[in-house]
């Protein structure tokens, strides 16, 4: 297996560090600290302990009997929705907060879209007694009120972002501006496999626990590997976390499900499918942009997928054809949301509902095959959105 990223943070031709000079030093510092942390037995033991007793790992790999019957294929759900705070984001937040502690930082900043990452950061910041500021687009604040309140209860300051599309992309911009200004004492706890090197590497490593557990669990249950791994792709962390440990298992097909929003050629967030190679937030990857390289505003009903770029490792997977990427529209995602709720009594996050819906399409050509889907989060946060959609119709 080709080891990616390389020393300069490249996954093939994607990744790198495209950042203002002020940040160069802290990225070097972060890389050094991460290397040291990897070698530290204590770091690993602390993280394992927290993942287990605080976050609730391992998560179940649940065989979904009703959904399987409905689809005519064997479906397992990797239940990241059962984790503390309700999504896979906590895997990464626990890892990075230990790193921040390790580096002696006093203050944590983060960006959030759905608020899931923000909640998980606010949570771990409380646990470790660190100050926490979370940047969130004002449109997302409106869409995810419960998570905003959760962050506040947890003692974080939620800073509304009014620029641009007022969603995740703009929250990232403001988080980076804060970071450039306060580099000395502040740790930027990024929420997905995006950003400049070494973030895509660090987040991938912390999320790989999803795929490692899945592999162990499926081998125990089925004595063989699945035919498909399916996960939604926003920045790409739950999907890379699931895929990465299976990279060398060439027979296992990876399917990343992007948000097709209102549809292709309309407003969407399908960066890998409709984007072009570009640089946003420090990394070279696929980016939704116009003919002058201005970044387009993304759109998805799922705030966690509403981002016009994608992690560089996915761009790499696409370029070597290790994974395929498909799009699911807003209304289909809502259908997926209802489908899982009604068949299995499990309410998925709207992000994960994109992956669930795609199974319906997959089942048409993969009858009898086995798929593991990453159920990246639970849907409580999305009830209002779905309610509004249902009323509209």
């Amino acid at each position, binding site marked *: 297996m080709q080891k990616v990223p390389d020393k300069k943070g490249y996954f093939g031709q994607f990744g790198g*560090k495209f950042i*203002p000079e002020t940040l160069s030093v802290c990225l070097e510092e972060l890389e050094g600290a991460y290397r040291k942390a990897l070698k530290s037995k204590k770091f690993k033991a602390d993280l394992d302990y927290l993942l287990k007793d605080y976050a609730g790992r391992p998560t179940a790999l649940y065989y979904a009997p009703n959904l399987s019957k409905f689809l005519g294929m064997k479906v397992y759900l990797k239940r990241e929705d059962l984790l503390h705070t309700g999504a896979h984001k906590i895997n990464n937040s626990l890892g990075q907060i230990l790193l921040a502690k390790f580096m002696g930082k006093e203050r944590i900043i983060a960006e959030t879209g759905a608020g899931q990452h923000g909640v998980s950061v606010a949570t771990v910041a409380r646990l470790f007694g660190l100050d926490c500021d979370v940047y969130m687009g004002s449109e997302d604040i409106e869409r995810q009120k419960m998570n905003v309140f959760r962050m506040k209860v947890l003692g974080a300051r939620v800073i509304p972002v009014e620029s641009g599309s007022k969603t995740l992309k703009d929250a990232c911009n403001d988080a980076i501006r804060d970071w450039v200004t306060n580099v000395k004492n502040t740790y930027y706890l990024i929420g997905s496999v995006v950003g400049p090197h070494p973030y895509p590497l660090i987040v991938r490593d912390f999320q790989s626990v999803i795929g490692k557990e899945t592999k162990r669990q499926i081998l125990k249950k089925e004595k063989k590997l699945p035919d498909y791994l399916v996960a939604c792709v926003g920045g790409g962390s739950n999907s890379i976390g699931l895929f990465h440990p299976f990279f060398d298992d060439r027979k296992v097909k990876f399917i990343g499900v992007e948000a097709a929003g209102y549809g292709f050629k309309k407003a969407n967030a399908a960066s890998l499918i409709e984007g072009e190679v570009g640089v946003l937030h420090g990394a070279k990857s696929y980016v939704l942009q116009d003919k002058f*390289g201005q*970044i387009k505003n993304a759109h998805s009903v799922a705030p966690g997928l509403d981002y016009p770029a994608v992690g560089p490792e996915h761009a790499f997977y696409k370029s070597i054809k290790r994974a395929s990427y498909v799009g699911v529209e807003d209304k289909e995602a809502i259908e997926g949301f209802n489908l899982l709720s009604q068949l299995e009594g499990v309410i998925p996050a709207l992000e994960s509902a994109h992956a669930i819906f795609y199974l319906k399409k997959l089942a048409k050509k993969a009858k009898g095959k086995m798929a593991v889907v990453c159920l990246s989060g639970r849907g409580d946060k999305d009830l209002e959105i779905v309610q509004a959609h249902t009323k509209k119709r």
Partner: protein
Amino acid sequence: MRIQDKFEQLKKKRKKAFIAYVPFGYPSCSHTKDILLTLQEAGVDIIELGIPFSDPLADGPIIQDATSLALKHGANPDKLFSLLEDLKGSLRIPLVIMTYYNPLLHYGMERFFSKMKKVNISGLMVVDLPIEESKLYTKCAAKYDLETVFFITPTTGLARAKKIAKASKGFIYYVSVTGITGPKDLGYAALKKDIRKLKEISRLPICVGFGIHTPKQVDQILKISDGAIVGSGIVKFIADHFRQDRFLPRFKNFVSSLCIK
């Protein structure tokens, strides 16, 4: 005119450089023409012209608002090149482009550089292109005889600063503060020390930018460096006055008052 030649000219006159930043297309593309000529009349030595970008993550609110309006009014590099084509001959001071990487990458580096050369732009700086990503860029710029300005900041270590100085042409842009653009108070003592250290590793002129917005600050900065760059201060003046009568003469007075040296 090359930046290098401008600094030699200034040196002979025992003068320091006053550099003004304005975003292209702000408040509209037609304003830019008058603004550039007015800056020249006001005694500005070098103009730094920004390519507006949708996600200017090194900029504070003043420049964010300005560039977002410029984009709304349809500013793009093609319009910039055609405007500068019209200004050939009348604009005699060096022009440096300031851009984020994506608009350049997307336009195509070779294509962008060859057009820059055609309209007599002297050089450029790319905010989010650090030295380790810039090999191809510096090579390509050299091919078109464009001067590549790089940034050094208070967080840059000496070994790294040496590498940056080596790749720099025209001048070195010393960022006065760890932070984004916008009016700030400055610590002259620390700046003086930092600049002195840089002088030991490079012969290039060192110009200071970020935060400078008053005549007093310009004066102080010019005492310890080779040039002062004012961005947000000028953009804010434009924002506050462009709708008013006699905007251009007042703009000229304002800029002259900043760059009396």
